[in-house]
């Protein structure tokens, strides 16, 4: 069952400071309202994974790993590989994270990232079929939140995309319904590159890439995932507040233009 969370333990005075400064069109760390914090992406940091990426977004740290394994396809898509996205909010990342089964926040994050990858058809799953109806490749994307300083969805989305574009697997032939791997290495069959942009509403201002202290005073957020052709592929509103239809339209427009920079930044890392 989903329930209202405890308020963030931020002093009222500090909350007021954050809200007031944003109302003036400024931010505590002197960024512009639409600016991202410094972004560092490192691909291939985990040798044992097929693909991996580490994203530092300001002080937020996220690692994603891709593992490719063999499994049984779903009945309704016998000719397609399987994509699974999971997120772990590990307890070291924040005083508010606890060990245990995934809670609604990590499930929501994983499902939002999953929707972006799935709906943009980022992976050509038809190329991951081994024996129709019996055997296919399964792509597992596991997202690890290591340090939570706000805007986890965007950081996780970029880490997942980075891990996917860096992922390698052996080329294969199919003999008697089983894959025979060759020595030659190939990338995952990627067709598209989704980027999630989350806009956060604080009182009546809309900012991008909130830090944790900004997130703690937010009214609500709206994540918009767009693909390489500027099409919207996934959206998710979160938080207890509300948006007007005009604000939602404005955020979509912002997300489309902002996503181009971030996408090219990730793709430039692929050699």
């Amino acid at each position: 069952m989903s329930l209202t969370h405890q308020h963030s333990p931020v002093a009222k005075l500090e909350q007021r400071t954050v809200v007031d400064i944003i109302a003036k069109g400024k931010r505590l760390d002197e960024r512009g309202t639409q600016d991202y914090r410094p972004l560092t992406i490192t691909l291939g940091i985990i040798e044992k994974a097929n693909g991996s990426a580490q994203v530092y977004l300001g002080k937020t740290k996220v690692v994603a790993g891709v593992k490719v394994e063999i499994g049984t396809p779903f009945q309704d898509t016998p000719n397609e590989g399987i994509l699974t996205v999971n997120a772990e909010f590990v307890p070291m990342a924040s005083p508010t994270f606890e060990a245990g089964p995934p809670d609604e926040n990590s499930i929501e994050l994983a499902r939002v990232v999953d929707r972006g990858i799935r709906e943009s058809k980022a992976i050509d799953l038809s190329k991951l079929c081994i024996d129709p109806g019996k055997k296919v490749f399964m792509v597992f994307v596991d997202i690890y939140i290591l340090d939570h300083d706000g805007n986890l969805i965007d950081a996780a989305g970029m880490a997942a995309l980075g891990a996917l574009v860096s992922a390698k697997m052996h080329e294969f032939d199919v003999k008697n319904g089983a894959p025979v791997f060759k020595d030659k290495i190939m990338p995952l069959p990627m067709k598209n590159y989704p980027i999630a942009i989350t806009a956060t509403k604080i009182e009546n201002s809309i900012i991008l890439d909130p830090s944790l202290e900004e997130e703690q005073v937010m009214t609500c957020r709206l994540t918009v995932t767009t693909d390489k052709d500027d099409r919207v592929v996934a959206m998710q509103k979160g938080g207890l507040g509300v948006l007007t239809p005009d604000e939602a339209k404005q955020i979509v427009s912002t997300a489309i233009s902002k996503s181009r920079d971030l996408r090219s930044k990730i793709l430039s890392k692929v050699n």
Partner: protein
Amino acid sequence: MEEVRLLDKNGLRVDGRRLDELRPLKLEVGILDKADGSAYIEHGKNKILAAVYGPREAQPRHIALADRAVLRCRYHMAPFSTEERKSPAPSRRELELSKVIREALEPSIMSEYFPRATIDIFIEVLQADAGTRCAGITAASLALADAGIPMRELVAGCAAGKVEGKVVLDLSDLEDKKGDADLPVAFMPKSNVIGLLQMDGSMTEDEFKQALDMAVDACRRIYEMQREALRQKYHLVKEESEAKEEAPAPEVKQ
């Protein structure tokens, strides 16, 4: 795979609807005896019950908040609600939907009136036919009103989407599965604000704007139906009480 046509040559949809036409809706308020508030919705082939308990003392005590009620929400699908049996254990989808539904309803509730209490919302999907989260919100908002919980406004839910390149309202099950995009929206018409907004599929910016306007407009229509459903129930209650008042007083035996 067999090609499924979702629009015919006249531009009508598989169930004969126009692009911006809602499926038939039926709303009933106060249909459960034990719950403090309840409502039932039929939206297309969706059959959904919503019940509200509370405000009541928060249990376990540690979840209580000092300045407002805790809102708890459970969205659940019955095992027999879908083509193939659904496991009764809550899926990741149901956990996510419970969260976004709570976040859609919470802004409408004056929870600051009930510190240390909980308000529990239960949504049971008895039969699913696309758009269950929106129909669930429409019903749950009525159940909250039926429970007498102070609210800023009713919340209405409706999805828009895209099939065969055309923006359409209120996707049916087939359109949801074979279509190009789905955009569920929950909206409060008087304050002109959105409480729930999700999307999956593929849309251009213009298509999104068009779909959002269509869904918002449908929510306004559903909102009127919600008011009518409340009026139906409480109008009858009022008539009954008036009838009692008008009845001649029983004769007192001397």
